[in-house]
């Protein structure tokens, strides 16, 4: 709180606002809350080699039960507008197992772990936070107060070794709320008077697929005593950026115009470390895990471990398509090349 408000007058106001917000009942958010309706559901992804992968994903619905959204992996990119302080996600679960949503690095939320008793009588954690049971008749609410600006990953907090890999993840962003008391757009980070502003932004969400695991889960062959008992033998065959492995004709990602400040939001939703390399630029890496660095780091590559987010600014000098790829050379679609984690940033003249 004290990081956001800058003088005592605002502090009093903020306390009043907080009282008003907390006074509203859950599900009836106030003026400072943005609300989304997500549905966990099944989908499939067709790989460039024709292989169809059973996936789990999130869809963005217009209301609970509307089921009018499309299930995607990664899930919908969620934005917390910078005039909103709080985020509410109403979750609908059409999967056969309990799911949930967590946003690591956002601390203003109440997380009540869910335990189960295993066959040896031990209490073990199944979920980092409260769960949404299958076929719930009412939305289960996940709430984050005073959402911190930055780039984040949301994902299922239930049995995450399986559910994240199955596709229950997505990206989330928020800009800085106020600069010197005023609401200014396109400020990604603020540290004192030091701002990170941008004209255009692009998300690069890295993840992998191990088809054997997906098949085992989808066919009921995953779990204790079944054909696949754990993810210990994780062997990914497909390597995705924004849910797509490279194949001929993959459309490039819009990334602003020449001389603009283009913010690249690197997110790793997979299980492996990747090292994205940007060809044609040094970038200024400005933040990590939603926290601004004190000083920019000028580099053309970055180490992106599992669940890391890193933000970088480039200022393209000229229009063009610029490759970005995983220098850990996950550049294959189940053995066939080219493929994998290669995409292009498309810088166009307005």
């Amino acid at each position: 709180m004290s990081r956001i408000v800058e003088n005592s007058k605002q502090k009093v106001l903020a306390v009043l606002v907080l009282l008003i917000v907390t006074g509203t009942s859950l599900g009836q958010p106030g003026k400072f809350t943005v609300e989304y309706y997500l549905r966990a559901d099944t989908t499939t992804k067709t790989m460039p080699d024709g292989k169809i992968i059973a996936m789990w994903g999130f869809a963005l619905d217009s209301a609970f039960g509307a089921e009018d959204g499309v299930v995607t992996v990664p899930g919908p990119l969620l934005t917390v507008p910078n005039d909103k302080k709080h985020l509410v996600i109403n979750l609908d679960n059409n999967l056969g197992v309990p799911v949930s949503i967590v946003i690591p690095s956002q601390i203003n939320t109440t997380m009540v772990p869910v335990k189960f008793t295993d066959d040896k009588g031990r209490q073990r954690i199944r979920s980092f936070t409260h769960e949404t049971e299958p076929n719930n008749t009412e939305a289960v609410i996940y709430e984050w107060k005073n959402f911190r600006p930055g780039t984040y990953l949301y994902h299922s907090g239930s049995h995450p070794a399986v559910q994240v890999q199955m596709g229950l993840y997505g990206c989330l962003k928020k800009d800085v709320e106020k600069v010197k008391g005023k609401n200014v757009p396109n400020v990604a980070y603020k540290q004192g008077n030091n701002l990170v502003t941008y004209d255009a932004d692009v998300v690069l969400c890295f993840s992998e697929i191990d088809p054997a695991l997906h098949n085992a889960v989808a066919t009921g062959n995953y779990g204790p005593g079944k054909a696949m008992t754990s993810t210990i033998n994780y062997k990914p065959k497909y390597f995705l950026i924004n849910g797509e492995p490279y194949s001929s004709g993959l459309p490039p990602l819009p990334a602003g115009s020449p001389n603009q400040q283009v913010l690249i939001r690197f997110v790793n939703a997979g299980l492996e470390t990747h090292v994205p390399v940007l060809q044609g630029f040094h970038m200024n890496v400005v933040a990590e895990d939603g926290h601004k660095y004190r000083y920019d780091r000028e580099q053309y590559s970055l180490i992106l471990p599992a669940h890391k987010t890193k933000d970088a600014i480039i200022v393209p000098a000229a229009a063009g398509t610029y490759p970005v790829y995983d220098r850990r050379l996950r550049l294959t679609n189940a053995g066939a090349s080219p493929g994998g984690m290669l995409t292009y940033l498309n810088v166009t003249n307005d």
Partner: protein
Amino acid sequence: MNRMKSKTIMRLTSLAMVLAWIFTGPTQAKIETVEGPTFNLTAKDGFITTPDGGAYLMWGYALNGGTMQYPGPTMDVNEGDTVTVNLINQLSVPVSIVFPGNVGITAAGDSNGLLTKEADPNGGTASYSFTAAHPGTYIYYSGTNPALQVEMGLVGALIVRPQSYHPVTKKWAYNHTDSRYDYEYLFLLTEMDPVVHEMAQCGKWDEIDLTTYWPVLWFINGRNAPDTMMPANTPLLPTQPYNCLPRMHPGDRILLRFVGGGRDLHPFHPHGNNFLQIARDGRLLSSAPAAGADLAVSNFTLAVAPGQTADAIFEWTGEKLGWDIYGHDVNDPMQPNEYAPDHGKPFPVMLPDKKNLTFGATYSGSPFLGLQGDLPPGEGGFNVNAGYFFMWHSHNEKEMVNYDIFPGGMMTMLIIEPNGVKIE
């Protein structure tokens, strides 16, 4: 632990080093480079050997149509140079070269590739030209099917000397005194899955599945330990010309140029002292232009990431060991760069009788720097200047083997030489 490692390594190393020293003279301690700004490279195949007896089919960039080499020639250019790299392709697949961190590259070639212009198989050509706008350490590698072609060996290092550089009077890596050094060394780190190379040799290209990649050999500058310590350009390793044997005197500053050439991260670890990482991807770690390396980081290990480069400064004086490394009496004169508070402090250990010892090949017979002691016949002999040897290696310790045989792999030795020993 480390002493045990050293002993074993040195015994295994002995024969190779004897042969090497006999036939090629003293081991060089410098970066072997090829000066630009124009380079004529040929992509061709050849074989490398590994200390466990392996021989593997490789693809490499050869200089001026010469022998295939792994890694490719270390290109040496000056800031502001217009660098031109002409590529002839003698392989049966298209190849190319990318230069990450260098921008404004004009590429010409037979075909359009996914990352750059490519040279067609069996005699095709390509050419790349750019201004070396920033000093530093860089990498180059094939931008054509790099998952396979980098593994096959199409990778090398590029050094851009700063404007302020002079090879004798101003050895700087960047345009700032924070990057000054007395000697420089290259650490281009790669790994290998022999199965890929065996499949390639059998022509089973379609059966190579890089998702099952499982490296069992680890390299510095294209060699596995203990070959890393053999001289550069030894005729014993005709396709692996580059060694890695850092040497320095107490008080010297040595520059370490790290290049992540393979596809895995390697936590590289110096014994003897931490090193100071001063740059990454060809940029000083600076808070502001002209601020020097004011954001430099003292590293116990440095995560050398694939495609990434890093520069570090290492220093050693024996500071705070608590005893006089020269075995001085209190009234003896000081050595250059000697750590004064320990001057004349006695060696804290009563040395066992030599009859109760076994001897490593690099033990001088004395614990003191620059002093040779008596050794039983046939022992020692690889420490001609009575220096100190420190093992430098990947701290992912499984990477210190050659196909499951310890010691080997991503490892070499730093030699602290006594003052006055010539290092070149």
